[in-house]
């Protein structure tokens, strides 16, 4: 017996994991798939520190996703996404468009951060503690706050710059 309360872990972690992954792969459905994949692996491996393990595996999955173009899977995702887009889009296409534009801005702003800053920010936003972030990124706990302060400042600045540039283009 692993002693892991899977129901609790799942309930408290899944959404965080999807959000974390979404900001890496920028495909909501794919993020969900990867989160499920991470949980599937966790169920198989029953790690000692499942929450931290999940984020670590998720980060690896997202990294691999970015590194390797998995065309067929993307097709599969596309198919699923299209189905859901059809459902959702039929309800409010304009909202969806706005949402997509916002996502694009955030994505660009996040891309302007260094990898470590971005990772720290996303992990924090996904509910990881300073200690967990420190372990994940190889930082001292005291350095996590500094990293986050830099990341937040840079994100806010970059977002505003891109937003202004976007408005100027129109």
């Amino acid at each position, binding site marked *: 017996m692993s002693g892991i309360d899977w129901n609790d872990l799942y309930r408290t972690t899944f959404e965080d994991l999807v959000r974390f992954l979404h900001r890496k792969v920028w495909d909501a459905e794919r993020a969900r798939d990867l989160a499920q994949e991470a949980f599937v692996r966790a169920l198989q491996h029953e790690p000692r520190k499942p929450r931290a393990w999940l984020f670590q595996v998720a980060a690896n999955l997202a990294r691999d996703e970015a590194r390797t173009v998995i065309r067929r899977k993307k097709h599969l995702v596309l198919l699923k996404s299209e189905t859901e887009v059809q459902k959702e889009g039929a309800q409010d296409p304009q909202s969806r468009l706005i949402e997509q534009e916002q996502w694009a801005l955030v994505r660009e702003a996040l891309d302007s951060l260094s990898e470590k800053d971005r990772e720290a920010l996303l992990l924090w936003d996904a509910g990881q503690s*300073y200690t967990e972030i420190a372990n994940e990124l190889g930082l001292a706990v005291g350095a996590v706050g500094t990293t986050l302060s830099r990341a937040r400042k840079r994100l806010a600045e970059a977002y505003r710059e891109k937003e202004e540039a976007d408005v100027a283009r129109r």
Partner: protein
Amino acid sequence: MSHVDKGALHAYLDGALDEYPAAEAERIRAHLDACAECAARLEVERRTRSDAHAMLALASPVVEVPSLEELRAYVQRTAQQRRGISRFQRMGWAASVVLALGAGWMLRDGQLQSRALDIGADLAPRSGVSSAVEAPAESDAVSSEAGRAASQDFLDGAAAGAAATLQRSDRGAIGNESVVETEVLGGRARPSSPAEEATVDTDVGRVGATMADASAEEREAEPLPKALDRLEQVAESPVVSADGAVAAPADVVATTPEASAAVAGEASGAGAGEAVALTGRVDDQRASAAGDSSQPAGPEARRRQVREATNAPPAVVANAALVEPAPARGNAEADASRSLVLEVEATDDEDVTEPLLSVPGHEVMDVTNLGEGSTAWGARVRQRMADGRRFEVFHLEPGIDPSILPPMETGVGEVSTETPFGWVLVRGAMDDAELGDLLLRLFPESP
């Protein structure tokens, strides 16, 4: 007294001071209470923090949380399939193309009994009955009924009845033959022998194999001698069909020339009648049906010019494993479904060309996911050629065995290959050359 740095301010705002050494946390709190300058800085940082998180929140998808039970079921369902991870993958994509040729093509000569011989890389233990009997449990678990029905509607297959394909064989007698007589010898279920379980406990790695805690063992390819031992072991295990004929396992498909040779050697040594494992560069012609399975003949090499049929690159080497069919009885149909497995060479995963979703140059009629949501296990693409003929392309997730697919109608052929991205199959009522060509066109050369 030194001021509080930005990092500490954020830790304070994040409620993370408790993770600091107690004395340090206490000093920071005390300082913020007493220092107006730092209190002002704290407000600036609070706004920055708030802005950043508001921006991040803009990119928060609505998360639909699937059922944990579904995931658990998925894990359980795939556990057995994962055990059967391809030898091909574990052995580092050995440099060979393996052709497992169903005897269906021989059936077209009209010499043979209606027996669908679907030969692949099955090392599943068996005695007396083939994996046809075992297959339904798996296929039921993933509920391929919908796909099966759709598939049967789609393909212009001939009348049902003559061919006993994997799933069909469990449905009862077909014609005058018993279930066992019409069973598939050597289904395409992938290896799942206990020996493999012991040596392989690896994740299929749907997206990437970068596992945080993946052990070296999991990544390690199985040593060749062990693989050979297993192949030999299987080769020694006869398959006894209902009519009493003893067959060496015809579905052993070796992935290296050495392994093939070992298998062929075993089959030969055993003198077991129905099955013949073949290896070698393909340069030969279609084999003719020979022998009476009730009086087993020795193995007979049969080779086929795959390259000619499929326009495969010249480096292609093919090994074929054939099952000699049972003698004809009564007025059995001369045609049956058939299956052919191509294994496309690659040196490592980085070099593997990922298959296209559909065959270029042919109309895509529709694309369907197989399975749902987290339990989706593949996709089916239906295509139409300019002359109106249709074919299907199946993409299965890694770890999903092709035996899950709906059975083929009589007259329908299938060509398949296993890749790190899962099995890819092409089915259509056309000859193997055309099917092979369609399959290979799914693999454009890497840039």
